[in-house]
């Protein structure tokens, strides 16, 4: 810890320069975020001021041509798709992490992790193309038209699975060897160690990963746009066609003018608020985790 303190007596010139550069870059990132937020508020201001935000929740529906901008159906669709994806990806991701941490033969661990990293790096439009040409017809042969909430959930689950799996694995790896050895010394089976010691201790890390994954799912645009069907309606079943907030912006922004444009910016603002809330939750989770460790 000593080396990280400022040594004021012999602060090299290079150090001063580096401090300034890194400091200003860190500041620039914060300023950029603030600017994005300001832009969103400014651009959506026209609609927010005159009709009031209540218009986004009590209009007849989403009919930009006649000035009706109800965001609720799209908000529900966004939440349903992200939550559904998380419900699939979380158990699968944790299980795959448990496998590669506790059960996989040594030679398999590294290739498995590489595959997960590759999965995480595939551009979303590629997932979308695959979804449109393979997944949608597949779901469609079961329940036409196939472009549906279910397809969106599947695609999103596939996309966030690597995030969940990699963060869970990191959390499981961080479980202290002392706990694991202690449990083993007490004669617990491997199953007992995994379920009774490792996962509970890694819980906070796993949850943080899940929140991060949910944020990615909420913000995903292209892949969902291609498979969800994009009809603005409150989802009544898994086979309903739905439109998420991000897809709405991507679909209509190139042609939107005036209030319509402002309403799209407002939906961006709404999304950003949700994501900020999740980020705050994730931060709290982590802070709580660190406090917990300190007490232990």
């Amino acid at each position: 810890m000593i080396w990280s303190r400022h040594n004021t007596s012999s602060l090299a010139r290079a150090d001063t320069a580096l401090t300034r550069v890194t400091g200003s870059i860190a500041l620039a990132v914060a300023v950029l975020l603030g600017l994005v937020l300001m832009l969103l508020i400014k651009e959506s201001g026209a609609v927010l001021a005159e009709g009031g935000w209540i218009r986004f929740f009590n209009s007849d529906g989403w009919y930009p041509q006649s000035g009706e901008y109800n965001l609720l159906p799209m908000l529900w669709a966004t939440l349903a798709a992200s939550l559904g994806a998380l419900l699939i990806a979380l158990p699968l991701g944790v299980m795959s992490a448990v496998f590669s941490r506790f059960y996989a033969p040594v030679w398999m661990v590294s290739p498995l992790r590489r595959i997960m990293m590759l999965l995480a790096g595939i551009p979303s439009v590629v997932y979308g193309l695959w979804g449109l040409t393979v997944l949608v017809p597949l779901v469609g042969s079961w329940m036409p038209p196939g472009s549906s909430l279910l397809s969106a959930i599947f695609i999103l689950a596939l996309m966030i699975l690597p995030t969940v799996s990699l963060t869970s694995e990191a959390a499981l790896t961080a479980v202290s060897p002392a706990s694991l050895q202690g449990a083993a010394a007490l004669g617990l089976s491997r199953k007992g160690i995994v379920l009774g010691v490792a996962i509970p201790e890694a819980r906070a890390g796993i949850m943080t990963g899940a929140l991060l994954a949910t944020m990615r799912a909420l913000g995903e645009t292209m892949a969902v746009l291609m498979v969800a069907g994009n009809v603005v309606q409150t989802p009544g079943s898994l086979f309903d066609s739905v439109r998420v907030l991000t897809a709405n912006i991507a679909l209509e922004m190139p042609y939107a003018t005036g209030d319509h444009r402002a309403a799209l910016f407002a939906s961006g603002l709404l999304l950003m608020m949700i994501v900020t809330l999740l980020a705050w939750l994730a931060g709290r989770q982590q802070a709580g985790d660190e406090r917990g460790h300190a007490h232990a």
Partner: protein
Amino acid sequence: MKYIHSICFALAVLMMGSAFADTQKLVLTGSSTVAPLALEIGKRFEQRNPGVRVDVQTGGSTRGVNDARTGLADIGMASRALKSDEGDLTSYRIAMDGIGIILHRDNPVHELSDGQIRAIYTGKITNWKSLGGTDQKITVVNKAAGRSTLELFLHHFKLNNREVRPHVIIGDNQQGIKTVAGNVGAIGYVSIGTAEYEQTYGTPIRLLGMNGVAATVDNVREAHFPLSRPLNLVSTGAPNPLAQQFISFAQSQAVDDLVTAQYFVPSAR
């Protein structure tokens, strides 16, 4: 240092001054369908004619006609033919816009009347069986609000977007083609240029003819196809020389690639 600064400043002022002195500005307003194309043509026109700036603003065909008439714009843009009470203006066709109804190749239905298409899109007919096809649910594919294709489609079939009961809403042509190609029961409409290309290269879709006219790029170019419209530049009887030059350029072969890139059809010459 000071000298260098002042010299640079003086140079900059000189250059800006001369640039402003030589700049000629051409203002185009009107149809949002024509605007993206006009913007691209304008860029190329600027490249070939240094010192000219082309300013494109949207606001609908009616605004284009009005602005050309009042002189607010040098050239108006309209995605329709001129009406009978607009005889004081001259229109110059720069491209044709045509859309075709597409079905999956394996769908046995080969022809649909305007009435049947209207019934399908308003949700009154929901199964191909009643149209002579197999017992299969119809998947209605519609365009996202604001797209010019949607506008032309609704206008032709005298539909209001609120009456349409879509199952899938798409953004661009490619997405529409992939959606229909992946669903035997789907019906959609896309730009004929794109659909014809995809059909030729083996994508399992079929373009439907309308009122006995085949949906081909040639028929769109000749304005035979019912679901097509001209994209026009309009101006008063005597446009200024620069506007005249721009109009000839927009009608020339030099911009055919730009027209095709926007999924429009270059007009017949």
